[in-house]
């Protein structure tokens, strides 16, 4: 084992050199965006390399995915360090790779997904879980890679319930106006013993669909992966394409994108507040929050021509820019509505008591599961991809502005609600600063040729990662979408397990404010 001396934020370059010591390495600097360093490791040294990187202070496994690139599938790990992102690529031969979830537990769900899509399994042989594969999926079910050798029945952990508990089936068709998602609530009659989710009802195979499309056409589908985070996912895919082609959007267009992202964060947090009031049964509070939400959506429609900001982002820049005067006039009024409703809620004892100690997540759980966004910040982790992804690269509009990661401790529904309110206030301030700095609807032309790039954005649900590989005539050969919901639904299981009763589940789900569409893609 290589002794890793604890030092201040180990920048990804220093880490790359230390990984060189392992031998068999090739450091490839990833594209124009300065924040990403790509390291190619060999299969044998993968485990050692993962230990080294996981050991670095503040290292967090942001994503793990596979690609059918060469003759054998290549495994890519995306590590988020203080100094930016580190991408390790490894060729996997023989359909087995060392179990990375033992080192970084956050990798478990990705291991299950890689098994379903590419058929390669971690070496330990521990049972995996079914994610996107419907139970009746035949061998002809479309996959990104080739079919897994072992049939799923042997690999997947059975959801058997033993002893005196019983499984309360909930879904997939749930309350009105709520997405289809199947919960298996294992309960002892009073409190919840275990929760598991089936998400294959909403799997539209977006990563399979993006193959062969140009970034511009791919963006149309990427935005609809998780409609409520259309801007964030669109921005991540556009940034990935720009990183692959080595261009950066003009600063004014980047600021337009940032305005759209902050507007999206605002209306999502208003919608979350309305859902929390509905879950706790405070109907007047819910109406007040929905009034604020509607006014924010109308601000979006007036500024960008679409209530949910579809079509604003395009590869290279922004397709539309808002009229600064309209935004300066309407936004403060709409946000004032939200602020007044939130202050009244925080002074309503019945509401606050209902949220306290409901769906508790500890910082240790958040770190172990690799949670992102308000859910992680509510446990005290100050992770914000706008902030510390290798310092805002020159292309990022947040470069010159003070971005504070709003955190709270306690990890319960109230902490998440307070983080959302704090972020809403930050967003309005940032929008004002961006409008002052000047915005316009311009986009840099995409040069021909191919490449690979990693893009990210901070959606209202957390860090969205996208990785794109373009072939020579600019068509996507492999796209990886990882909206924030994919990570935070794992926290939802743990939050429900902290012995809450049935009526807590809608409150916990509203406080997370995730989408099943984002999880199932």
């Amino acid at each position, binding site marked *: 084992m290589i002794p890793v001396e604890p030092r201040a934020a180990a920048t990804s370059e220093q880490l790359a050199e230390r990984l060189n010591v392992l031998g068999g390495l090739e450091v490839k600097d990833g594209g124009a965006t300065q924040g990403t360093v790509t390291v190619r490791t060999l299969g044998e040294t993968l485990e050692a390399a993962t230990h080294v990187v996981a050991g670095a202070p503040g290292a967090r496994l942001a994503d793990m995915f596979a690609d059918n690139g060469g003759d054998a599938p290549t495994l890519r790990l995306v590590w988020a360090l203080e100094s930016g992102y580190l991408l390790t690529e490894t060729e996997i031969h023989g359909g087995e790779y060392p179990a990375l979830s033992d080192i970084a537990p956050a990798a478990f769900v990705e291991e299950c997904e890689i098994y379903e899509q590419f058929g390669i399994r971690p070496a330990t042989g521990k049972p995996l879980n079914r994610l996107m594969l419907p139970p009746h999926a035949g061998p002809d079910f479309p996959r990104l890679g080739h079919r897994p050798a072992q049939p799923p029945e042997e690999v997947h952990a059975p959801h058997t319930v033993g002893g005196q508990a019983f499984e309360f089936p909930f879904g997939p068709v749930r309350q009105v106006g709520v997405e289809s998602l199947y919960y298996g609530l294992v309960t002892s009659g009073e409190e919840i013993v275990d929760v598991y989710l089936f998400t294959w009802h909403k799997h539209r195979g977006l990563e399979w669909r993006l193959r062969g499309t140009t970034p511009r056409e791919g963006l149309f589908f990427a935005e609809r992966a998780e409609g409520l985070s259309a801007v964030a996912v669109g921005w991540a895919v556009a940034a990935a394409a720009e990183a692959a082609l080595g261009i950066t959007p003009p600063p004014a267009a980047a600021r337009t994108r940032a305005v759209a992202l902050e507007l999206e964060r605002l209306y999502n947090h208003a919608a979350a507040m309305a859902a929390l009031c509905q879950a706790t049964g405070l109907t007047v509070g819910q109406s007040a929050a929905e009034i604020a939400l509607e006014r924010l959506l109308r601000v979006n429609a007036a500024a960008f021509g679409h209530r949910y900001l579809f079509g604003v982002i395009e590869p290279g820049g922004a397709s539309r820019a808002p009229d600064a005067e309209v935004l300066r006039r309407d936004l403060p009024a709409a946000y004032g509505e939200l602020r007044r409703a939130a202050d009244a809620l925080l002074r309503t004892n019945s509401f606050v008591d209902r949220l306290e100690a409901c769906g508790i997540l500890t910082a240790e759980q958040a770190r172990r599961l690799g949670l992102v966004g308000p859910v992680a910040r509510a446990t005290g982790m100050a992770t914000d991809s706008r902030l510390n992804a290798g310092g805002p690269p020159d292309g990022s509009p947040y470069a010159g502005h003070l971005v504070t990661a709003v955190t709270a401790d306690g990890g319960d529904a109230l902490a998440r609600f307070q983080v959302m309110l704090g972020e809403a206030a930050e967003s309005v301030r940032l929008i004002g600063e961006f409008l002052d700095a000047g915005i316009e609807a311009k986009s840099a032309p995409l040069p021909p040729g191919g490449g690979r790039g990693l893009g990210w954005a901070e959606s209202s649900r957390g860090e969205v990662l996208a990785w794109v590989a373009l072939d020579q005539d600019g068509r996507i050969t492999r796209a990886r979408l990882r909206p924030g919901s994919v990570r935070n639904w794992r926290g939802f299981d*743990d939050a429900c397990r902290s012995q809450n009763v049935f009526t807590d589940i809608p409150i916990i789900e509203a406080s997370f404010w995730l989408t099943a569409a984002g999880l199932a893609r």
Partner: protein
Amino acid sequence: MNPLDILYGAAGAWLAAAVAGLLAGSWRPGLRACCGLSALAGAAAAAAGGWSLVYGNTPVVAPGPATIVGGPLQLQMTSLAGVFVALLGIVAVALALYVPRYHEPSRGTGVYLAACNLALLACLAVLAAGGMVTFLVAWETMSLACYLIILRHPRSGETARGAFWFLALSEIGFLLIVAAFVILSAKTHATELDMMAARGHLVPGGWRAAAYLLALAGFGFKAGLVPLHVWLPEAHPVAPADGSAFLSGVVVKLGAYGIVLFAFRLVPVAGPWPGLVTMGAGAASAAIGILYALAERDIKRFLAYSTIENTGIIVTAFGAAMVFRAYHQLALSAFLLIAGLYHVANHGCYKTLLFLEAGVVEHATGTRDMDRLGGLVHRLPRSAVIAFVGTLGIAALPPLNGFVSEWLIFQGLFQGFRTGSHLTAILIVLAAATLGLTGGLAIYAFVRGFGIPFLGMPRTRQAAAARETGQPVAGPALLAVACVALAVGAPVMLAALSRTARTVTGTSLGPLLLPGKLTVIPAHADFSAFSPTYLTIFLVAACAVPVLVYLAGRPRAASVSVPVWDGGMVSFRPRMQYSAMTFSAPTRVTFDALYRPSVSVRRASDDDPAGRSGPVHYEAQVTPVFERYLYRPVVRAVEWLADVIRPLQSGDVNLYLLYVFLVILLAYLLGAV
């Protein structure tokens, strides 16, 4: 011709049945003859019991030579014992109809049937005992016969343990009963019960109280009052179905008979406190009994705890009757005595029925664990209907007899204010409140007791493979008819019982109790009135009206039957139903101070905390408070004492000579004094 003569016939038939059982061994026609004789005897006993209710006490008779049983064999058929004899008869008939199809004739069947009939005979002797010695000898014979019954299937240590618990506690109880009788007969210089009752004034107050408390404790062991109840949940599951039905239906009732015998006939103690003590013990037994019933998965243990609850209700009624007598409210006292006796008959019927049905379920599926049953209503339709009638009865739901008797007991308890003393009134209302809690929990327990095994989807293959053919139905059906008859015919039964109360408390409540032909007044007309017969008729009519309206106004469009809405899920699995323990989880949480549950959970994500979902295992165990904190210390103390005393008998001859010398010396000294 008096009821006692009919009982000779019954006794003779039972004796003959016992001998026939012994001779038959495993010969099927022989066993059938034994059951026939037993049924005949049962019918005779039922007739005698019913007649004795109205006939009053027969004179004491001493048939046969005086020293057959080491003392004068004195028999007397009192009307107080009439209900119990009638119940004994009906249960005997039901068991006789049930046994042939339940027991496969094997080597021990003959002996077992002989023991059963012997037990029935002993019970009859206890109830018809005119003298102290007859009573005690018959009581002990009954205990031993029941011990043999429980040991029918000695296949596992569990059976031996359950039988031993029964015998041990029975013997302790017997000692206390003997002590009580000795005190009374010593003071009144008589061994005949009537003589003792007549000379009751000779017994000074202190001895009278001591005798009553000893009797209460002694009979409490057999009746199952709470701290003394431990043998019931141990013995019932291991006894065969008809054995445990007999135990719960009749033997436990003899405990109640003993208490009412001492309280009302032999030694009416002055002052309210014995009544309050009895009522307190009864209320506590009722509440704790039903709470433990809710924490049970085994059907028979669940029914055993329910027996404790119902005995608690009966004893509470008798206790309240004693309290009202102490405050010279004789009408109310007689009314509550009648209500208690009526509840004895009711509980005897539906509890025996439920135990027989539990036997059918175990016979058909091979298991008694509720969490392994389910969906039996489709596979055992007839048994399900009969069990439903029994469940309606025991859960005290309106049309049936359980409701009538509990309603009468509540009417009596609610008139606590007539005692005049505030403290007593409060205590009586407190007992009524405890019974109210018990009533609510009883409905909750029996919805679970009937719902989990009979409704829903079968949880295991055995439950799915259950078949009705060949299962005994006649016995439980008879008891179901008895329950309905007791409910509809309640006024008739109460009229007969009022004659019994007159023989014991001396107040004739007849006209006051039943002003109209079918309405019942709880001793004071200004309080309330209630007619079980009209209630049943009205309820049946009320149910019929919506059915008729539906049939008349039914939509003509073709109706489409669609599976139950399940949220669009692919398929329901049996594990997605409430199980016995999860259904009773709310009480386990509310009363965790009593239960002290110990929970063990194993989840897939425990060993590898990375959000993996997979198999889950959840277990919640309820700690047996009485066995652990009351009986275990007593047993350990006895063992310790035994270790201390053992050296005395070390087998050394010199030591024995020393003992002989010391005894002689002591005798000399005592003689000299």
